[in-house]
């Protein structure tokens, strides 16, 4: 974490409510996101118990599996879920824009955004995707044709979460923790009810009091996917027994409605809170990446693309890893450029400094090694109170004029001299005396991925060319007990 966040946590304790650690919203928020709260039967890897899902706060869909050990009921649940989720996900593929450039392509203007309560639900989405994407509508164990399609989309959504800055599948507790520091530990922040109690405590109560009350699983049931053990013993088990005896799913429905509705309300409240923050400058660029991936996935599935294999291959894994690292680097830098409170952390640790320009040498020119004509390299002297830990020669970027780079010439006793290296056409990129500036070593990245060998050229060190993945009957008929 960071000194700023830790300071804000201490401040939250004293003030009795969560403190902001961001001035802008660092994630995309769709006009109508799909909120999805899945529940699982305790002790099982991926046995769905029920879910509340929908994109209208006033009209949640409640889905239940009245006997979670029954395989047919599980698939019926997945089919019902597909009937709600697929129109939402596939319906984003409407109007397109043309992305110009070397790799000119069409891109949908919209993409699905699914919001779940927390990390546990993200993991459950992965498992639901894994357990359904290989199924087939024909063969010995046929399933509803929509089930494997949903499995592919759930897998897609999960995989987007591996890329920093994606807003395709958002765990709400982490989205809130990105913007507010509470007076409790990060571990306790994983509880949506207590986290929100700190962010907006009811009138007359401190965050601490409100959070303590929100820990009661009877008042605020866990946001899933695991249910409260007490609820399982006292309410759920009798309800499932009643279903086994009478065939009526109503007792289970009512029990799960009571568990899910409080979380449903909290989720939409959190959506409103996030909406209250202005969107950060780079969010659009990152959402465009989500739209790009979505566009590609729609096309892939339209061509009958096979479900993702159980394991990655060497080549695609290397490319993915590169993309993940690159996304992480851009995301960390973009957030700092977009938000002075995030930059504050880098200023406190000496990776950035902000201050006022006290002197400018606009006309300075130097001869580059091997060059014949002198080139313009203005010098800017900045007075700063920040503890600068950037050595002379270090490459830095301007936070105000993105992608303008320079290098540290001298740093001594609160005065830093920076040489500007680019974006100097007609002197436009040079700040004036008295301007507020901020320089940082954080690199926005965005470089082109180096070429990795094609699958058929995978070197022997990485197992040689992999066999083409063919979905097998075994995968399609896998047990789900």
């Amino acid at each position, binding site marked *: *974490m*960071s*000194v*700023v*966040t*830790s*300071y*804000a*946590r*201490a*401040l939250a*304790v*004293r003030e009795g409510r969560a*403190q*902001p650690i*961001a*001035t802008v919203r660092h994630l995309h928020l769709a006009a109508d996101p799909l909120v999805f709260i899945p529940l699982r039967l*305790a*002790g*099982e*890897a*991926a046995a769905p118990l029920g879910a509340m899902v929908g994109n209208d706060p006033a009209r949640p869909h409640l889905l239940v599996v009245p006997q979670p050990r029954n395989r047919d009921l599980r698939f019926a649940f997945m089919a019902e879920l597909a009937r709600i989720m697929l129109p939402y996900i596939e319906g984003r593929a409407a109007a397109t824009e043309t992305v110009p450039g070397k790799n000119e392509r069409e891109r949908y203007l919209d993409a699905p955004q699914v919001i779940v309560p927390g990390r546990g639900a993200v*993991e459950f989405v992965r*498992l639901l995707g*894994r*357990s359904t994407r290989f199924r087939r509508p024909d063969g010995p164990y046929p399933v509803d044709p929509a089930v494997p399609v949903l499995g592919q989309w759930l897998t897609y959504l999960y995989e987007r979460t591996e890329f920093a800055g994606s807003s395709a599948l958002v765990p709400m507790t982490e989205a809130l923790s990105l913007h507010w520091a509470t*007076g*409790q*530990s*990060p*571990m*306790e922040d994983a509880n949506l009810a207590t986290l929100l109690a700190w962010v907006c405590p009811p009138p007359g109560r401190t965050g*601490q009091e409100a959070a303590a009350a929100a*820990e009661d*699983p009877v008042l605020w049931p866990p946001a899933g996917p695991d*249910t*409260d*053990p*007490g609820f*399982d*013993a006292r309410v*759920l*088990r009798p309800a499932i027994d009643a279903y086994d005896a009478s065939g009526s799913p109503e007792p289970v429905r009512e029990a799960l409605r009571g568990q899910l509705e409080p979380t449903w309300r909290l989720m939409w409240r959190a959506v409103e809170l996030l909406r*209250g*923050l*202005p969107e950060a400058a780079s969010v659009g660029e990152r959402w465009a990446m989500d739209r790009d991936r979505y566009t590609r996935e729609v096309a892939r599935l339209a061509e009958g693309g096979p479900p993702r294999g*159980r*394991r990655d291959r060497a080549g695609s894994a290397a490319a993915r890893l590169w993309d993940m690292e690159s996304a992480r680097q851009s995301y960390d830098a973009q957030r700092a450029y977009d938000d*002075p*409170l995030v930059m*504050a952390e880098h*200023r*406190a640790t000496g990776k950035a400094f902000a201050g006022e320009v006290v002197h400018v040498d606009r006309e300075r020119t130097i001869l580059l090694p091997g060059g014949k004509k002198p080139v313009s390299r203005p010098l800017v002297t900045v007075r700063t*109170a*920040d*503890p600068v830990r950037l050595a002379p020669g270090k490459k830095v970027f301007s936070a105000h004029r993105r992608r303008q780079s320079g290098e540290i010439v001298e740093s001594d006793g609160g005065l830093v001299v920076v040489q500007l290296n680019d974006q100097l056409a007609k002197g436009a990129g040079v700040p004036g005396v008295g301007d507020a500036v901020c320089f940082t070593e954080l690199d926005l990245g965005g470089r082109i991925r180096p070429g990795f060998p094609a699958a058929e050229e995978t070197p022997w060190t990485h197992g040689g060319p992999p066999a083409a993945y063919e979905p097998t009957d075994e995968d399609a008929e*896998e*047990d*789900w*007990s």
Partner: protein
Amino acid sequence: MGFLTGPHDPAVRTDSRNDREDRVSTSTERLDALRGGAAPVDHNARTVAALAGNPGCDRRAVLDAAGISKRDTAVHLGHPAPFGQSPFALARARSFEELVKADRCAHLLRLLRETLGLPIPAIAYVDVPQAGGQATRELRHARTRKELRLAAESAVRDGSGDGTLVDHPLLTLPVAGHEVYLDPAVLAVQAGGRFHIVEIKSFAVIDGAADSAQVAAASRLSAVYVYALKAMFAAEGIDPGLVSHEVVLVCPKDFANHPTATLLDVRLQLAALRRQLSRLTRIDRILDRLPSDLTFSLEQSPAELARAVRTVEARYAPECLSTCEMAYFCRSDARGCGSLEVLGRVTRDDLGGLDSVDAVLDLAAGDRRASSEHAEIAEQLHHVHAIYRAHATAEAVVA
């Protein structure tokens, strides 16, 4: 390797045997008095693993050594811990274990042959009968010792002869100078002259990977049994090196109920456990510091009990919430005195050396002078405070 003769066992190193027995008996009386007439609760591998996870907590060490029910104590104090397992999870764990052990462990034997890669021609199955009560524990422990000694002797005599599978072995472990019983939730298998602990867990291994938190917990638990088994061998004069640091973990494969086995190397957990157990302040030393009439009897009022509990120092951290029944009481106390511990280890490390919310904020605002050891963090906080005020207040206007 001399397992218990190393520096990690202070009892062997410092006390003569008679002296040690005297001290154990007086501290036993002391601990019985602390419990105040209630029956002692059993230790299990989970509590030992958790104890080793927070070795600096005297409160936990005393309550556990005395066999005091932390759950009942927390309830009496008005801070019940919401621990409990779902009946569905318990049923699932039970049915999976039954499946693995069905037909005299047919599944398990197949898995052992596959995982250990050993030809096990014949294997003797011994079940140490399960029964409750303090009196029979010694008997069960004696039976466990006997069976394992026989297995070890036959292993040494015949080389890779017949295997032995001991179900529900009741092992003991010295914790803070005190012998505790571990619940017999595992199996011990001797095959090819080596002993392995076998642990059956009902979390799934999906595409060759399981939930890392659950695997970590299982490794910590297994390490406790490996440690106890090695200790028992050492006490019996058998080479503790016969006990493998590789544990056989049996779990359901993918989404089915079909078991699969994996070898889990617990050397790291074993080393951590050994280090933590040796670092545990010996219980005598903690007891010496406590008032002689102290009792944690639940006969007294909650306020009196709270006062008694507070005489033993606790070391609260948010991780306690998932491992210790007393956590909510300790958290309430820690919050009450503005301790930084409640904000988690990361925050505590970020604000290195400072221990209270007030210290952090006063140093940041410049309302307090920093001691020389805190000069650096104070300067950083002062700086953060200035930047934060400039920007967070601007944000408040926007919101």
